[in-house]
């Protein structure tokens, strides 16, 4: 079955959505992320949606679902890179994406997570990446 890759980077999981997802693919991602968080003890999930040129109510619901599930597993979710046209459309559509943290890009998302998780420098992403490889 088709799946969206999930990258582990230190104590974060990173997902870059690069395709126009059909609904089942979005559901699989939600399930896969839940499993990965619980298997790895990841503290946070970054979801890069900069390549998505629309977010409709289904994808909005999936993002909220991931954030809710992650929270139960004690991980934070940040959605990064939402295109301005997508953000404007979401507001008019009436989706509030309550409870989802957003950041302009992956770097800012990481910074936000490091701050809120109070990660020390040696828990820093680069260091852990190097350790793992």
């Amino acid at each position: 079955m088709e799946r969206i890759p999930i990258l582990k980077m230190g104590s974060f999981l990173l997902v870059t959505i690069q395709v126009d997802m059909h609904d089942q693919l979005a559901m699989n991602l939600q399930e896969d992320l839940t499993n990965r968080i619980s298997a790895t003890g990841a503290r946070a999930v970054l979801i890069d949606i900069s390549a998505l040129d629309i977010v409709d109510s289904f994808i909005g619901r999936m993002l909220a679902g991931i954030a809710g599930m992650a929270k139960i597993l004690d991980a934070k979710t940040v959605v990064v890179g939402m295109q301005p046209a997508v953000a404007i459309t979401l507001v008019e559509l009436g989706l509030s994406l309550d409870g989802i943290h957003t950041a302009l890009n992956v770097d800012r998302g990481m910074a936000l997570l490091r701050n809120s998780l109070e990660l020390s420098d040696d828990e820093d992403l680069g260091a852990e990446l190097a350790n793992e490889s």
Partner: protein
Amino acid sequence: MNHEELQIRTQSDIVLVRKAVRELTAKLGFGLTDQTKITTAASELARNTLEYGLGGHLEMETLKNDLGKSGIRLTFIDQGPGIADIALALTDGFTSGKGMGMGLSGSKRLMNEFTIDSEMGKGTRVSVTKWK
């Protein structure tokens, strides 16, 4: 004027609808934000056609009004169970399924014109138009 028909029978068809609508709006010269609004509305309505209407089709038309302004009209047609209470279905947050109940009301906000005809046991027809 220009007229095209797309089947809505599977989840992949919803992806194809988004792609076709995006391409047509770009070709008509809609700005990026309007392209996004129209494509998002199409995605919502196509999913309703599939989920509640049990499948159907989309008719895409390009329009030109008396002043030479161009527009796009999308009509979603199914032969499903129909909608018992249209006003209720159009209420923000109302869903008879597991949705968020934002698809119909949100699509109405995203487009310039919105009409819905439905007959119980016969089917539903939702038509939305956006002018440049």
